[in-house]
């Protein structure tokens, strides 16, 4: 326990805290609260902690580094509340020493940094593959041009066949260069695949271990668990699942971008697609207290991979549920696009909508508009659009800020059954 004034002067400090910091009970009274902190902790106090307390009256679960008299650091979680007492405003804090939590957070931070480094590496390699590809294309174009010139010359100067032969030889050489460049590109691509597989393993294994151990603790294998501990385990578990999900999304995106997804195209009616996904989303609609209306023009047949089309629709419906306040409405419609080549399955919501200048960027990986209650990786729409395009279709978005958004999965119309 600790109390200090807005000026930071310590007015009360209990014996436990004083002893934890290596002081006697009275020694820290009248000192500045900063003298309990590391230098980094003091900056954080002035730039974040104090403003938070002053503007909001309280601060919860703030991590601060305390400094022991002997100079060692002690991590602590601080909860604080500012209140009037006897004409003075004091901030009352409870501090919890957090060796264990700090260790987990260190692990988490290390994992996060490793993931960031891996991502940078992945990007570097992708750039390299793209560069080699571009080089290849350039060379192919140059070759094409030379071949054209050759043909012209052959027609005009048939008699100079010797010269033509020489040029032909050169062409052969170029072909070998081209072959070499192609094998370099293939090698780089193979390295990327191996790297992705490794990254998947390296990141998932410790994450699954975290999940497993949390379950063991929750099952009270190591002894009884208090309600607070159980709540904390729940948070660890949620974070673990979130991270796992993020990695899955990342790998899915990489796979789609590498063109390693097979599409099983078949004739499907849009009505079938809709009735296939609605049962999966209805519980979420009920929980979020949203109404649903479905209107589908009958008899529209599209060409699509049923499973992937359903995956896209579930993603769109989940987003609609996530971004629509309780009492709102979600609509599902199927029709033929005005230009006549596509079947459209549209999911509309009565949420806050999206500003026109943000409509494009929502399809970029990792972009999430600023609605903080939502969870997720920001990869959903990027993956959905890639899947739609993989089926020869597309994903379209339109929105009126304040009124809601409509996302449409466009699928090629099937030719009339013969």
């Amino acid at each position, binding site marked *: 326990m600790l109390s200090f004034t807005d000026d930071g002067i310590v007015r009360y400090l209990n014996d436990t805290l004083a002893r934890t910091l290596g002081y006697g009970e009275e020694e820290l009274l009248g000192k500045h609260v900063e003298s309990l902190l590391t230098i980094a902790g003091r*900056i954080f106090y*002035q730039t*974040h902690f104090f403003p938070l307390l002053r503007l909001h009256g309280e601060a919860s679960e703030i991590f601060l580094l305390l400094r022991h008299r002997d100079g060692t650091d002690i991590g602590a979680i601080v909860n604080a509340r500012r209140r009037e007492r006897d004409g003075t405003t004091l901030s009352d804090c409870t501090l919890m020493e957090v060796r264990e939590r700090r260790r987990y957070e260190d692990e988490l931070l290390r994992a996060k940094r490793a993931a960031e480094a891996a991502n940078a590496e992945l990007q570097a390699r992708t750039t390299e593959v793209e560069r080699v590809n571009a080089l290849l294309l350039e060379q192919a174009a140059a070759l094409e041009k030379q071949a054209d010139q050759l043909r012209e010359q052959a027609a005009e100067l048939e008699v100079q066949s010797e010269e033509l032969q020489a040029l032909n030889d050169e062409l052969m050489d170029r072909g070998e260069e081209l072959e070499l460049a192609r094998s370099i590109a293939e090698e780089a691509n193979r390295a990327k695949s191996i790297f992705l597989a490794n990254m998947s393993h390296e990141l998932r294994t410790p994450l699954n271990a975290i999940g497993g151990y949390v379950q063991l603790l929750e099952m009270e294998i190591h002894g009884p668990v208090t309600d607070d501990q159980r709540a904390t385990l729940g948070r660890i578990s949620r974070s673990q699942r979130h991270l796992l999900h993020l990695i899955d999304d990342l790998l899915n995106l990489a796979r789609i971008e590498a063109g390693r997804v097979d599409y099983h195209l078949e004739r499907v009616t849009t009505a079938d697609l809709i009735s296939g996904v609605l049962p999966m989303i209805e519980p979420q609609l009920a929980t979020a207290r949203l109404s649903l209306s479905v209107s589908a023009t009958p008899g529209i047949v599209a060409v699509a991979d049923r499973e992937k089309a359903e995956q896209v629709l579930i993603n769109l419906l989940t987003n609609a549920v996530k971004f629509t306040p309780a009492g709102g409405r979600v609509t599902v419609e199927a029709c033929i696009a005005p230009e006549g080549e596509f079947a459209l399955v549209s999911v509309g919501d009565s949420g806050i909508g999206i500003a026109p200048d943000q409509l494009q960027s929502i399809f970029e990986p990792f972009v999430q508009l600023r609605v903080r209650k939502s969870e997720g990786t920001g990869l959903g729409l990027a993956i959905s659009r890639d899947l739609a395009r993989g089926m020869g279709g597309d994903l379209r978005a339109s929105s009126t800020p304040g009124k809601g958004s409509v996302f449409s999965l466009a699928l090629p119309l099937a030719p009339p059954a013969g």
Partner: protein
Amino acid sequence: MHAMTVDVIRRNNVVVRGRGTQPMLFAHGFGCDQNMWRYVAPAFEDDYRVVLFDYVGAGKSDWTAFDPGRYASLDGYAQDVLDVCHALDLRDTLFVGHSVSAMIGVLAANAEPERFASLVMVGPSPRYINDGTDYVGGFERADIEGLLETMDKNYIGWANFLAPAIMKNGERPELATELSDSFCAIDPVIAGQFARATFYADNRADLARVSVPSLVLQCADDIIAPRQVGEYVHRALPRSTFRQMMATGHCPHMSAPDETIRLIRDYLTGSAAA
């Protein structure tokens, strides 16, 4: 031109209040947003046109406008200040900057001195890192790395712990929105970059070029901007006034708003008379 004006107002969440004509532009420091001026700015609304804004990446600004290249140094933030000046066509502006914004104001005033009447600097420091034996900024690079680590940990903590705890506070639901707007939801990458731009900056050479008059408000016992740093700023600025405050810490506008208001008002009325 008109379209661009509208864009900056929205991008920087610009708020204009007050009944005066001369503009008074308040710039927040690192770690917060324009909310930090709520105990000081209203006192000037009778006499000035009070302008508040959030830097891109802070508060309710448009975060999608955050360009890591532009905001890699304080110049990008100074451009935000100038963009706001252009958008509202501010002239003869009284600029009030807290902490890092004092130096951002210096950069803006050096770029377009004709727009500024004076600079009020609350807790300024032109360089936070010690430099050999000649200059004591107060910190070593390791201290700043420690700050970045503490921030990182709190963003993990806030995302998972703080928000739900606040959400549970049924008596004061407005806390949830405001808190997530200004603190909880700040993007850790943006916050880290702002911290680096702030604490690794060296603006000592820019001070001598300031042509407009300035006021240095120095707190007592300010770890972030110690007295010798404030005095350095005062010596280096050609036309500056130095006022030592009773207030302690680094945020007098939040811990001692009355004294802060009084000293700024004294300075402004004094220079108006001069």
